[in-house]
């Protein structure tokens, strides 16, 4: 009987039900879209902020003072201490390896080009690193600095004589991609000069525009430092530091230490990097790390705000439609009651119907919300957002709760009325 009533009602009041269904679906669409975006947005903005450059600097522990101005270390090649290039792959073996977005070593060699002081910077452009048998990754300057623009093409890491010339230097030397530059190292070098083929001109808006970038091996050979580098830039996705992250690590209890170690704070990632690479010191670049932390904190607050607004709107949509449909059916309630149905029986008819509509609307809303998030993410971030299945049960539960809550109050009102008044009034 119950099922018959419900199925009849669903069929006969198609338009009304469609409206409720649409309201539930729309409300859940918004909630799902915001939740999906919320799950992604932190990561996305984090990646966006990676264009600030590296947030961790890896240097040899116990190295002498660097004499760097304009981003180039002017110490003679060979003085100070170095790290081994082969050790860098170990960065992808630490606990938070998946948070390491990219890294690139650096070895500078001061010298002259056409009598003009210029520095040769050896690094990786887009190099394939073998972590272990099953895993490899591509990393280097290209990945580390997404805002750098190259006119011409990026050099190949394997081509020892290819180079990328900074925009200002290229303008001063009047060279273009396809040209040649002759670099003379200042001192301590293995060769008196090197002829480099210009593959591209680099514009960064920073001090790199006065430098020449070559594959790391080229500088290693020129400076007679095979397999060595001076400093590495590491870009990692981190959790903004809170009070716990700032507490003194050496005083943490074993349990607290585990919690600290297993949270991707910039300080704990630095700690793990130092453990992984012997003789290295990893330091957070505070201005990048802190700015990122603040911005990500604000974005999280914003998403919470938007999520709250979306939930309120969704709840409003569903509840008001349910309210309207139930109010409209007071006469039906009166009829059931006059035929001897108990309040509980009547309520079960209405609530079951509402739940059914709510669930269907929830499922539809989840899918359209995910699609909308995908579309929005493509427009806003330029990449597609995935389906987050974890949101489905939450969306269904939300749809159910809101439809039932929206039906409960008008139902209670309707049940209170004497059947006689309602029916005579009609």
């Amino acid at each position, binding site marked *: 009987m119950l099922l018959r009533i419900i199925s009849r009602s669903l069929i006969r009041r198609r338009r009304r039900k469609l409206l*409720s269904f649409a309201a539930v679906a729309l409300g859940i669409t918004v909630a799902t879209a915001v939740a999906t975006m919320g799950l992604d947005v932190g990561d996305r903005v984090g990646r*966006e902020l990676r264009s*600030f450059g590296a947030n961790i600097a890896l240097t040899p522990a116990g190295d002498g003072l660097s*004499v760097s101005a304009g981003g180039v270390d002017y110490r003679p090649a060979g003085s100070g201490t170095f790290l081994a290039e082969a050790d860098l792959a170990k960065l992808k073996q630490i606990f938070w390896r998946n948070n390491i977005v990219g890294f690139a070593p650096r070895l500078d060699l001061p010298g002259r080009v056409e009598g003009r002081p210029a520095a040769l910077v050896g690094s990786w452009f887009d190099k394939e690193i073998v972590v272990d048998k099953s895993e490899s990754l591509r990393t280097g300057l290209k990945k580390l600095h997404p805002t750098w623009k190259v006119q011409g093409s990026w050099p190949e890491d394997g081509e020892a004589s290819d180079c990328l010339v900074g925009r200002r230097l290229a303008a001063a030397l009047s060279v273009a991609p396809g040209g040649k530059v002759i670099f003379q190292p200042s001192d301590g070098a293995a060769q008196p000069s090197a002829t480099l083929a210009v593959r591209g001109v680099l514009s960064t808006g920073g001090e790199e525009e006065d430098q020449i970038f070559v594959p790391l091996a080229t500088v290693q050979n020129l400076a007679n430092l095979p397999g060595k580098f001076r400093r590495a830039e590491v870009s990692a996705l981190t959790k903004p530091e809170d009070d716990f992250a700032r507490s003194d690590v050496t005083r943490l209890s074993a349990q607290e230490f585990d919690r600290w170690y297993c949270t991707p704070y910039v300080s704990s990632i630095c700690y793990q990097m130092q453990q992984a690479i012997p003789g290295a010191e990893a330091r957070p670049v505070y201005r990048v790390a802190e700015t990122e932390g603040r911005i990500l904190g604000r974005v999280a607050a914003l998403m919470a705000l*938007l999520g709250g607004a*979306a939930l309120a709107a969704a709840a409003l949509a569903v509840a008001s439609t349910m309210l309207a449909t139930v*109010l*409209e059916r007071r006469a039906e309630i009166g009829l059931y009651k006059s035929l001897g149905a108990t309040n509980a029986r009547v309520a079960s008819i209405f609530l079951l119907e509402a739940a059914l509509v709510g669930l269907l609307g929830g499922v539809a809303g989840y899918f359209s919300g995910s699609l909308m998030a995908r579309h929005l993410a493509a427009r806003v971030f330029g990449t597609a957002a995935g389906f987050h299945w974890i949101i489905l049960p939450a969306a269904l539960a939300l749809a159910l709760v809101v439809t039932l809550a929206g039906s409960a109050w008008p139902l209670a009102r309707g049940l209170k009325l004497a059947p006689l008044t309602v029916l005579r009034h009609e």
Partner: protein
Amino acid sequence: MSKREGKRSRGGRTLFWRLWFRSLSGKRPQAALALGSLVVGAALAAALLNLSSGIQRKMTEEFRSYGANVVLAPGREAGESGAARLMDEAVLDRLAAGAGHPRGTAVAPLLHVVTRLSKVPADPRLPEFENAIAVGTDFAALRAIYPGWRIGGSANLAGNADCVAGAHVARRLHARAGDTIRLAADEAPAGGAARAPQVFRIAGILSTGAAEDDQVFVPLATLQQMAGLAGRLSLVELNVPGPPAEIERIVRALGAELPGVEVRAVRSVVESEGKVLGTIRALLVSLAALIVGIVALCLMATMTAIVLDRKRDIAVMKALGATDRVVARLFLSESAALGALGGLAGFAAGFAAARVLGQRLFEVAISPVWWTLPTVCLMTAALAVAATALPVRAARAVEPAAVLKGE
């Protein structure tokens, strides 16, 4: 209004308004519901619109903590040697006098000099001296540009003989705040004799994670005098407040105002700032649009219910001679009033919420954005009218005789 309608008794018009007020003030749960959804929708839209400018301002502020976003460097003609290119200090005066940069801009002049660094008194564990970069600057201004830097000890360079040492420098020298160091210019400047070394007291120790850890910061005038480079600068760093487009404009204005100086924006900051702000604006706008859509749907449902509920009223009105137009006008003007009322109440609630949320979540004081008030009210009124228009068309089909007889 046609002549015939104009001639109609004044009683007819008062009846219209009486009906109007009666139905508005009548205890209809549906009307309350419609008003409720209008208020909630208006409140959400008003809150988001009012918050959006505050949020963007705050985000811009947060981006400022990354550091300098505009850099002045010596132009190409100022000298050929890359690292040692210098410019004249007069650029600071021209900068201060010019209209190119807005209020709140932090300006820090910098002079980089390679020096021989040693500890006083000499430490037998250390080499005789080590080369290090000394940076002559206005440290308070530099500190304002880089709020993310961490300083142990005092950041206040009280005297001309105080310095701030980078963390790596301090570690190398086994020095703490309060110790003294000696700096001597490494090379004699062209045409001048090497100046006497100078002793500095370490006031504070700076950790940045970048090149600054290996540098010593001293007052600009002291270093200029010590290195024989009076009136010379290597770089001027600026932290210009304002959104990215504004900064691009200022860079162009400064470039025109300061010939011989290269003015450039730090692109990584300006670009990612633009992207993140764009993301946030897009999120806010798309969500506000979705909320409007939801409210429209709610209203449609409720208004349909109201019109259907008042079928009998309509039938009576029509039986008494009301035209379809009068009935439509009654309903439409009613919902317009309802919409405006909802918009007003919603704006008040939304603004209050924006204030609290702005304070709690973003630590910004939100001042009312007045253009949002008429916008929100008009929007809700338009929504309400649009949502009523469809069910009102159904009212035309009401046959007074059929409805009233059916009773």
